[in-house]
């Protein structure tokens, strides 16, 4: 890739925080580092990955509203976790975490366990018990 071909396709993926660097050759054929704000295919692939996350969150919200899942399921998705990863963060078996994704089981949790989930998901117990908005 030539220096002048380093793409500058800004999709605001970097929040304007900084530019990344790419390696490219200059007019003498020597490699140099060139700042870049992004490249279209990269942006597209990132957007695609985020679409999946957002779909999971939206699905979880629907399930909570339909009474099929506990709010824990929603906040787990917001944190981009699955039961396996969440179970590691709260140091409980996966099957127990899965059980707590059901509204009735979740409603029976004591303050200690609620706090453990809240800590892992970086929210308060109050927030954990409801959907935002």
């Amino acid at each position, binding site marked *: 890739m030539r220096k002048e071909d380093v793409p500058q396709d800004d999709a605001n993926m970097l929040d304007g*925080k900084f530019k990344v*660097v790419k390696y490219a*050759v200059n007019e003498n054929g020597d*490699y140099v580092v060139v700042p870049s704000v992004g490249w279209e295919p990269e942006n597209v692939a990132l957007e695609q990955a985020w679409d999946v996350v957002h779909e999971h969150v939206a699905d979880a919200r629907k399930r909570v509203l339909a009474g099929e899942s506990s709010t824990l399921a929603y906040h787990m998705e917001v944190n981009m976790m699955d039961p396996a990863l969440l179970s590691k963060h709260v140091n409980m078996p996966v099957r127990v975490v899965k059980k707590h994704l059901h509204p009735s089981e979740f409603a029976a949790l004591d303050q200690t366990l609620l706090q453990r989930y809240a800590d892992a998901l970086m929210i308060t117990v109050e927030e954990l018990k409801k959907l935002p908005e």
Partner: protein
Amino acid sequence: MSVKDIAVPFDHQQSAHCETGVISNLMRFHGLRVSEPMAFGIGSGLFYSHMPFLKMNGIPVTSYRILPGHIFKRFSRNVGVEMKRMSFRDQEEAMRELDKVLDQGLPVGILTSVFYLPYLPKAYRFHFNAHNIVVFGRKGDEYLVSDPVMDGTTTIHRTALVRARFAKGTPNTNGRMYYPVKVPTNADLKQAAAKGLRRVARDMANTPLPMFGSKGIPYLAGKLRKYQEKLGDRRALLYLGNLIRMQEEIGTGGAGFRFMFAAFLQEAATLLDRQELREKAKEMTAIGDQWREFAFEAGRMVKGRSEAGSSFATLADRLDAIGVMEQRFFKDLARTS
């Protein structure tokens, strides 16, 4: 809690990749000048693997480099750097040890999860637990951070740093930290570069098993041809998008580390006085350009805006062609190195 503020005089330089950037920056602090591409080459960082049996978020892992952490290990071995490496079960102990080393005036390499680094752009914060940063000081509850992929230094609150150091997943970060205890300032970089080069050439050309080394590329091509019929449109496109991200997202310097490797070959040509490596660098650049073409076409498909005639089959053809080029390239390099 720690008591006094400290700022180790640390010269931060931006790099494309976190691990090689940390190596380059830490070595410079200890009086050994190695560029990022040189660190990448000496550490034999370049590789290729496609592992359908190993999935992350339900998508098979494709990698253009060796395992995280191994570039540093190989670099240290080839240059004769002695590293102190630690991991912890206890969070407070992990922070105490970090404070202790900072108090000795030393910058410290830290393994983190990008999901828990608030200073990074939101769009990049997935659960990726192999991000390397350097912590070089402390001011109150804020730690001074040199994150190699950023253009300047930044800070992170103690609480956030603890979280990032103790992320769970693949792998658990376990509070891992490391710092050089002995760096030879008169290191024989020539020998180290020659060694690193040989290892990459050999591994890319000769690793057995179809999914590793340059023949892993046609192996993926074969899989790619069947993606649509096996996975359906949606999953096939997700797999494809993941390939683009692994190849191009923050950290590779473009074309799945191929350009960074070409930059290494160029530096090695001068260092080892082997002009033929400059030609090899040109060849590797051309291969990298083909990887970019692949990502470009793949990106259009993911976006649903592909040109007429573009399909998983034409993408697989591109990969097959790249596979042939890389196999020839590394066989030749293995023979002459």
